[in-house]
């Protein structure tokens, strides 16, 4: 375990400090946790891509209903399989850290909630979102009438141009007036 910390030299550390919202200790801790997920024979942690099902074993992501969406959003792999490199992992932690700005958090929250990746939150996206939050099984979800009433209310509160969907600006506008968002949108290792 002693060799892992030495692979992250001072230059890279300060570069990561500049490019993310993480502190030095948080970056080192992230590297340690990332290296634990690497397969044994892999020595260079910085360029390897960890597959999604390994990332989802992390206790911080395991119980999260949005874990798969989070991996898909932060992954920069060409095959869109949700695998994360160390850079992606740091991006993830930076967006979820204490000191990230509201704009960053709301931007990534929008992308996470946009299940069909079409750039807006439509009725299907909102329905999937509600089901993720409440559990999704038959006895833990709302009835269709309740769902319709709920989504109508959400759209009434957030859809300003009345086009039936919530785009990024409207989402960020709603979030800027939501006092709980910053404290709940947080993952700390």
């Amino acid at each position, binding site marked *: 375990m002693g060799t892992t910390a030495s692979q992250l030299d001072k230059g890279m550390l300060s570069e990561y*400090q*500049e*490019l993310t919202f993480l502190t*030095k*200790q948080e970056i080192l801790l992230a590297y340690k946790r990332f290296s634990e997920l690497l397969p044994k024979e892999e020595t260079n942690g910085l360029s390897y891509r960890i597959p999604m099902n390994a990332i989802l074993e992390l*206790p911080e992501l*395991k*119980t*999260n*209903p*949005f874990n798969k969406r989070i991996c898909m959003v932060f992954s*920069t792999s060409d095959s869109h399989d949700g695998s994360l490199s160390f*850079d*992606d992992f740091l*991006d993830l932690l*930076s967006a979820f850290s204490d000191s990230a*700005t509201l*704009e*960053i958090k709301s*931007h*990534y*929250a929008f*992308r996470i*909630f946009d299940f069909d990746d079409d*750039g807006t939150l439509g009725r299907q996206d*909102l329905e999937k*979102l*509600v089901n993720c*939050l*409440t*559990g999704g099984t038959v006895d*833990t979800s*709302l009835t269709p009438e*309740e769902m319709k*009433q*709920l989504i109508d209310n*959400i759209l009434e*509160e*957030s859809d*300003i*141009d*009345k*086009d039936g969907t919530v*785009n*990024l*600006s*409207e989402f*960020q506008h*709603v979030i*800027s*007036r*939501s*006092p*709980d*968002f910053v*404290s*709940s*949108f947080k*993952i*700390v290792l």
Partner: protein
Amino acid sequence: MDSVFNIDIREHIPNNPLLYQPPSYDSLLYRRKSSTVGSKRRSSSRGRFGSFSSVKSGGSTIKRQDDIEKSLLEQRAVRELAKSMKEKRAVRDQRSLKAQDLSDWGQWRRNARRCLKRLKDNAEDRLSSLKLWRSDIRQIEARFGTGILSYFSFLRFLVVLNLVIFLLMFCFIMLPIIIIPYTSANITQNNQDHGSVCSVYPSSTRLGLVIFHEHITDLLSGGGFLEQTYLFYGFYKVDKIQYPNGTYNLALAYLLATIAYLLVSLIWIVKRSATGFKQNLVKDEDSFQCFCNKIFSGWDFCITNEKVADLKRSSLLYELRTDLEEERMKQEKAKRTRKDKVQIYSLRLILNVFVMAVLAACFYSIYLATTFSQEQQRKQVKVNFIMDLIHEYLPSIVITLANFITPLLFSVIINFEDYSPAFEIRFTLIRCVFMRLTSIGVLLFSLWSQITNCGDEPCLCGYNTALYSCWETRVGQEMYKLTVFDFIIIVAVTILVEFPRKLIVTYWKSGLSDWWGEQEFAIPQNVLEIVYGQTICWIGAFYCPVLPAICTIKYFLIFYVKKLSLIQNCRPSTRPFRASSSNFFFLGVLLIGLSLACVPVTVSVAQINSSRACGPFVNYNTSWEALTASVMELPHGAQTFLYALSSEAFAVSFFVVSCLAMFYVIALAGAHKRVISQLKEQLVMVGSLQHLQV
């Protein structure tokens, strides 16, 4: 800002992407900043490189340099861009290429700025690692969510606040007295002989053979050997101290330290609540955007426990269902007939009168208990150890009983009053807050009526000397007893009630355990408990300068007791308490406590005659006179200035100016509201026009 109003829809089917954005404060700021930089906000696509508009320079290189520097300054830091790491690196490289166009001086400035920023980040990092209980609070957050976390960070805030208040009192009041033997200083003692009756202060230390349990009684009641110590006001029988370097007016310092700690508490609480205040006061939080808040900010991403996640899901479901039902009920309520309304209102009136009667009964019983307790202490009736303690603690016991029964009563009554669920909770809380904090006031009032009551004749020294040779110490002792008793009750309830409850519910399945259920960590009641303790501390710190230190230790221990209780005995509540509203609620209740605490302190400082036999204000009629006496010694200019500040002319003009400011702000808010609705209509119109065009 003007361009917003002058947009002509017919001419400008706009390429202006900003019009697609709703008017939030952020977009206003952003528009001011981004005149040189192109749009960074993607409206509907993701992951593309924001285009930089190239800096078009007019002529001279100097202007070009300024432009470059300005554009580099106005751009956000690289890490604030919502891009992947690779893209951020590319942006950063591009910027440093551009920066090379700057002169050496410009580059040096840029580098210096970056170094400073890095230093600041490191310093903040270092500071935050020093915060008390960081790992404990993180553990709680992971298991129980942000609502309960806010209670514990509130507790941490109170520990630090009490420590600061104690340091204030220590440095200005106790330290000068402690260092007297080490510096060659003289004390101007207060040896007034006027009306020798008034300045008699019999020693209360026990003489002869002292039985052990009497020491315990003394420790718990602040009497006996504790009475004439640093603990209480009576010990500080010093007016001025003559040091080799100068004179230190201890009486004035005592008074000013009291005012200072009240002001420090006020400023710190207001500063801490400043962020939550804006959002929570602007709109009634529960009805505004409540669905969006629950859906978009509903999930605590820091939860790591599977069981807690399941519970969170079910509580979210429950909340959503209740809110939807409440909305349906609201629509039904609008259809309420006149007869129904009259019925409901008369029922509410009756119930409110009943609540007031209950409160009056509680206050009267507190009054009776206080007078009885004081009589017993005066008569020095010694029945036995336990009865003595009960007599001493009778007011505390009655207050605690009242504070235990009334919330249950209120929560039963509110069910009949037919309010919306959110309002129910809030109203019950307001009633409980009122009950808790006014009971202290009633206690103090009954104490004072005893102190200033000399039977039929007017009091010789302004207070009842025969019974209270040093009344401030007596008040301090009562506050001390309240604090100690409060702490004992909290610990005792945790050990003797919550722990057995957990055992019963876990190991003995029966009807009782099903009905009683597992303990939930009820945040509002817990918060009221500690605000109550803090109010006592604020009132008592004037009479008992060591009380803040005792409260610091008390809250320190309560943190661990509550944490233990939370982890061992409690399950997360089904009705989640949201973090933001909690912050505002806690600090709001604390402010109410602070303002209630200021009243007794002000009255006793300004109205009631200070003791002749003890304390720093022996030479003055009331404690406030110490300040007026020192003001008289100031130079003439300062005197006139201070008198002008306290005159009526100044007060009236200050009041008028603040009223004008308030009206201006209200008018501004109304104007903003109108602008917002206008802009929303424009947006809808533009959107529909676009659809027509396509």
